[in-house]
C-alpha cells in the first residue's frame, strides 16, 4: 500500500502474534517498562515510545498489518485511496475539488498523511451525520415497519 523509504510496514507471523500477546500484557501494566539491549544495557521507555509500542502490539496481537509513518509523510494518490477504501480516480477528483490540500512532485500528486487523516475524520463524521438524517426520515415515514416484496 504505502511505499516510501521512511515507512515500516509489517504483518505479524503466527508465532509473533503469541509474542505480541505477551508484550501487550506487559505493556498494559502500571509502571515503567524498559528495553534491555543485547549488551545488557537497560533503558526505560519514554512515555511516548511506550504509548506507540502498546498501540502497535495491541493491533499486532489481532494479526493486523501495521504501518508506522510520520504525519509529514507524502503519499501517492493510490496509497491515499487505499487508506480510505476508495478508487484512485475518486480520490483524485476529491483533490481537484480541493477537499484536501495536495502538491505536485513532478507530474504526480502527493498528499500529506496528516492532511489525509484530517480529511478522513471530517468525511467519517459527515457520513455518520448523514446516516442519522436518513434514519430519522425512515423512522418518520414509518419505513422500518414496511417490507417491499421483490419483483418476479
Amino acid at each position, binding site marked *: 500500500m504505502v511505499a516510501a523509504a521512511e515507512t515500516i510496514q509489517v504483518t505479524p507471523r503466527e508465532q509473533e502474534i503469541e509474542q505480541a500477546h505477551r508484550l501487550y500484557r506487559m505493556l498494559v501494566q502500571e509502571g515503567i517498562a524498559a528495553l534491555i539491549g543485547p549488551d545488557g544495557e537497560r533503558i526505560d521507555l519514554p512515555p511516548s515510545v511506550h504509548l506507540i509500542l502498546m498501540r502497535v502490539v495491541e493491533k499486532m496481537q*489481532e*494479526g*493486523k498489518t501495521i504501518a508506522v509513518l510520520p504525519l509529514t509523510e507524502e503519499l501517492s494518490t493510490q496509497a491515499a485511496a487505499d487508506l*480510505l*477504501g*476508495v*478508487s484512485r480516480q*475518486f480520490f483524485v477528483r476529491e483533490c481537484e475539488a480541493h477537499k484536501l490540500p495536495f502538491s505536485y512532485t513532478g507530474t504526480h500528486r502527493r498528499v500529506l498523511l496528516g492532511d489525509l487523516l484530517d480529511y478522513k475524520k471530517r468525511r*467519517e463524521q*459527515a*457520513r*455518520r*451525520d*448523514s*446516516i442519522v*438524517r*436518513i*434514519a430519522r*426520515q*425512515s423512522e418518520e*415515514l414509518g*419505513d*422500518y415497519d*414496511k*417490507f*417491499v416484496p*421483490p*419483483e418476479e
Partner: protein
Amino acid sequence: MISDFPVMVDACVLVQAAVRDILLRLFERRLFLARWTDEIIEETVRTLRDKLGRTQEQTDYLVNELRNHFPDAWVEQGYRELIPSMTNPREGPSCPRCGRENTLRGDREVLASLEICRCAQFAQLIRERLAL
C-alpha cells in the same frame, strides 16, 4: 484493509429501509465497501414511489444524502460489461442451513441479496473477513 471487499448493493436491498440503513452503518465502519450504479439508484427511487407512495421530495432527500456523503459507492465506468457476470452464480457451496446456492463470487465479490439465508451468508462473510 482486510475487509476491503466491494459489495454491489441492488435496488431490492436499498428499498428496504431497515436493511439499507444497517448496511450504510456497516459501510461507514468499513466492514465492507458498498457499490451501486445510477441505474440501481433510479430503480430504488422508482420502487419507493410506486410501492411505498414516496414523493419526489422524499426520494430526493435520500438520494442527495447518498450523493453528498457516499459518492464513492457510485460505480461509474466499465461496469456494464460486468453485468452478465453479476447474476447469482448457480455453482459454489450451498448454504448449510437451507441448501440454497452460495451468492459469493470469487474471493472479493458478493452480490447482496434480500433472501434471509443470503443475508446470513453475508453476515458470515463479514465475520470471516474480520476473523471475529
